[in-house]
């Protein structure tokens, strides 16, 4: 089955949407992502939509849904990389994406998450290292 990959970067998860979203894919992504947040204890989710050439109300609702679910699981969501034409169209369409944090690109999105979560770059890496160690421990055990 077609799936959108979810990458772990330090204490964040990165989702890059590169395919034309359809209903089933959106539902699968919501399931996978909530599962991954719980498994990894991620504190932040970055959704990169730079490859999307449209965002309609369906995708807007999906993004809001993901942000809401992540919020309940104690993770912040930032949508990054929106194309200028998409932003213009969204406003004219009447979608304001209320409650969704946005940033211009992945770097700025990560900086925003770190700031919101009061996390320094070092702490972020410590989380990643701690994860590696615990994975090693599991391997040995």
């Amino acid at each position, binding site marked *: 089955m077609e799936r959108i990959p979810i990458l772990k970067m330090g204490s964040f998860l990165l989702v890059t949407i590169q395919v*034309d979203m359809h209903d089933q894919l959106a539902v699968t992504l919501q399931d996978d992502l909530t599962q991954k947040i719980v498994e990894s204890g991620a504190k932040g989710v970055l959704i990169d939509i730079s490859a999307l*050439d449209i965002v309609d*109300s369906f995708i807007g*609702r999906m993004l809001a849904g993901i942000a809401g679910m992540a919020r309940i699981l104690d993770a912040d969501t930032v949508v990054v990389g929106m*194309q200028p*034409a998409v932003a213009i*169209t969204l406003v004219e*369409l009447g*979608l304001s994406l209320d409650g969704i944090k946005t940033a211009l690109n992945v770097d700025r999105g990560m900086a925003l998450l770190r700031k919101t979560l009061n996390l320094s770059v070092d702490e972020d890496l410590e989380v990643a290292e701690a994860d590696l160690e615990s994975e090693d421990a599991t391997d040995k055990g």
Partner: protein
Amino acid sequence: MQLIKGETVPIRAPNDIVIVRQKVRAWAIEIGFSIIEQTKIITAASELARNTLDYGGGGECELASVKNSLNKSGLQLSFVDQGPGIANLELALTDGYTSGGGLGMGLTGSRRLMNDFKIETEIGKGTRVTVIKWK
């Protein structure tokens, strides 16, 4: 208004909305719309195709390349279903109103994104939404 050529795409399943978007993009590029205009047209088409599927029980999208009396090119899209029809058109054209589970942005939003907008609907017979973007 002169019709140059046309094509019909069925809307029977959610995946057909993706196909409608791809077709509309190809036609918008061929007519020579800018990236921003293409994005607006494809977004409107996506909203209307979803309405056809969710509220009309499926139907089709008719794409047509058109020219007006001033020889201006345009892309005309008609979304046709044989569904229940819209009982209260005025209400359906209100921002934020939805009879289903949506955001209520489909009709009003696509009206803003396109230049011409027309709805013909009959209870028990179906609905035809026709939109045009002029170059």
